[in-house]
């Protein structure tokens, strides 16, 4: 007791020093928070001040404020998942709108108008079968029809080729990001200061958020702050090791993904993320729509050629039959070679009339609808898909936004709060400084008066 009493004043001076240091540390945390007020994915740090008295130092060796990261892991996990869904829907909505725009409907230059014009030119041919003008018009309209089919199906091909390039770039970037996450895991493992771990994790969060938009991921975090990233349960960042994602293409430009980790290669099927959206459009949606357009082209080529042999290039090769729209081509260039009637006489027009009849004729290959009817349903179907996709994306945007707000409510930086904290630490610092001053004057009294 007497020892403690005699050491009292020096101990008090020490207490003052710790108080000053403690408030400085708090102020530093506040400064860090303010500096990151606009950093996306930043997690607010909170200074938790322990009990500080004259004995604390002797007992625990520590009385500084500890840093607490203000996080809600459930919200963060849900947010990652929803970001994946959003990324997938966004990519699909974009690609589908491009497909939709390619149809150029409703307009006179879309296939609907061009097909009508072609059948009308067959009627004109039936009206004046002997006229070279009507024959030439029929050839030209047939050519315009072929070009429109070629350009529409060509646009689908271009979109799919671009998708392959995009996937390549996205996957390269994805691999860099996976490496970065793994490298930051190394830094976390080396670091001991909770504040700097928080900063590294903030950087890692940003990368993980970007990753989640590209590919559906889940993360788990060990007690030491090291994160594991998985896709469909397959680890793509395991501790300090990152897997390599690679793309495989088949002859029809269908994209599949593989991951390689520790020399093992496994195929990867992401359920969300822009890459999954791109693959869905590439492997399923666009080929489906494209095949429907090819079916319409095939029905026209087969139907017209059955009536007027050799008007369009015959689709004998199976590869060409499957992609009829791309191979549609008018063979006849000379108006004299148009035969409007079976009699071969100048006024014969039964063939021309029969070609015009194809407009409304139900075709078994088109599910007993006419070429125009089938096309109408196709365009309407594409419109419905785009509109549904846009709605789902908007909903997902809203969900992400709400979750981000929920995350913000816990992890976000409030300048008001930080301002209040700053004042608090400032005043506490001033108080601690005055305390040191007082203890110092007491010591001076003791030293000089004795």
């Amino acid at each position, binding site marked *: 007791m007497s020892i403690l009493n005699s050491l009292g004043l020096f101990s008090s001076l020490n207490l003052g020093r710790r108080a000053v240091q403690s408030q400085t540390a708090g102020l530093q945390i506040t400064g860090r928070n303010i500096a990151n007020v606009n950093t996306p994915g930043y997690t607010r740090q909170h200074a938790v001040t322990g009990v500080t008295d004259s004995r604390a130092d002797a007992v625990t060796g520590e009385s500084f404020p500890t840093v607490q990261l203000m996080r809600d892991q459930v919200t963060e996990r849900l947010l990652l998942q929803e970001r994946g869904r959003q990324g997938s829907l966004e990519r699909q909505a974009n690609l589908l709108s491009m497909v939709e725009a390619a149809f150029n409907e*409703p307009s006179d230059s879309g296939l609907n108008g061009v097909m009508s014009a072609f059948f009308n030119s067959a009627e004109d041919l039936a009206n004046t079968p002997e006229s070279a003008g009507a024959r030439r018009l029929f050839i030209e309209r047939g050519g315009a029809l072929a070009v429109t089919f070629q350009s529409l199906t060509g646009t689908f091909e271009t979109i799919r080729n671009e998708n392959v390039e995009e996937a390549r770039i996205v996957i390269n970037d994805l691999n860099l990001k996976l490496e970065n996450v793994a490298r930051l895991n190394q830094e976390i493992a080396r670091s001991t200061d909770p504040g700097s771990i928080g900063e590294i994790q903030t950087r890692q969060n940003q990368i993980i958020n970007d990753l989640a938009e590209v590919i559906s991921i889940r993360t788990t975090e060990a007690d030491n702050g090291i994160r594991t990233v998985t896709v469909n349960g397959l680890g793509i960042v395991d501790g300090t090791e990152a897997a390599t994602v690679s793309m495989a293409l088949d002859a029809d430009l269908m994209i599949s993904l593989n991951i390689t980790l520790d020399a093992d290669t496994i195929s990867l099927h992401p359920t969300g993320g822009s890459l999954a959206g791109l693959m869905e459009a590439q492997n399923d949606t666009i080929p489906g729509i494209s095949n429907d357009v090819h079916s319409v082209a095939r029905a026209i080529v087969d139907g017209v050629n059955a009536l007027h042999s050799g008007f369009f290039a015959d689709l004998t090769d199976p590869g060409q039959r499957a992609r009829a729209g791309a191979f549609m081509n008018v063979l006849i260039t000379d108006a004299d070679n148009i035969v409007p009637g079976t009699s071969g006489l100048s*006024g014969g027009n039964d063939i021309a009339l029969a070609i015009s009849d194809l407009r409304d004729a139900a075709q078994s290959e088109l599910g007993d609808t006419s070429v125009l009817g089938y096309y109408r349903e196709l365009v*309407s179907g594409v419109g419905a898909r785009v509109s549904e996709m846009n709605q789902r994306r908007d909903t997902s945007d809203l969900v992400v936004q709400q979750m981000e707000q929920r995350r913000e409510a816990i992890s976000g930086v409030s300048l008001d709060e930080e301002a209040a904290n700053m004042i608090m630490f400032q005043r506490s610092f001033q108080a601690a400084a005055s305390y040191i001053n007082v203890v110092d004057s007491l010591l001076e009294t003791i030293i000089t008066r004795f």
Partner: protein
Amino acid sequence: MQMRVTFQSRAIPLKSAIQQRSEDLLRSQQMVSTGKRILKPSDDPIGVRHALLNRARIAQVDQFMGNIELGRADLNMADSLTGQVYDRILRAKELAVQMGDVIHTAASRSAAALEVDALIDEVVALGNTKFRGRHMFGGENTLESPFVRDGDSVTYAGTDAGVVRRISNDTPLVETTFAGTGLFFQNRSGANATQDGVFNVLIGLKQAMEGDDAEGIASSLAGINEEFDRFVAARTDFGARTERMNQVFDRLEEERFQILDLQSTTEDADLAEAITELQLRQTALQATLSVASNILPTSLMDLLF
């Protein structure tokens, strides 16, 4: 627990609201500037199906109406030509009645024979008339003169069936240019020489006149009357066809009007509504922007430091 409101949680919804309002405004602008409600299929997937159907149907109806216009012109021409043939037969009948009378001399009969000869040439010319580049009475052989007179024989180079047009997709095809068969003659023989028709009746009359055969002239009257009736019947038939075409034309015109009306309601924007909406959306965007500029900078920082 009370919800913490941070700078970001105020900024996030504002940013997306501004984006949303801008998108709405753009959509309104497009609607007002194009006057169209459907600019792409996703604007109204069901409506776009109607739009495509309406457009395809209008293209088809326009074509049918054009076909009918041409067909009517053909029929009018055919009617006028048969009318002129009818006049020639009438004149031949007058001459036959006149020359059948025993008081006429061989000289006056041979003079009349010359006139009948000219009538035959005229009927051949009428049968060979071209309208808009095609022979009206040659069947499918539209580019070659169907009738060739060689002395007292007329041969036919056409086919036995006429050329048809489609005037709508739910009525039968209508013949608008014709074969000589059944009108100018019934049967052919040898080198397609016409038998039992207007030419042979007129040639018989001419030969009787040349032979000063009063009895023969009188007996040719029955044949002349028969041809006369045939051309009258043909004109009645052309009239009936024209009438049928007129009816179909009127029906198509009505349908066209209805579809255009429907197309307008399907595709066109209600301008009054669109403009009102445009203004509302403009106001909404301005309100959001002013909220953003007024609220965002406010913070305790502004008051303390």
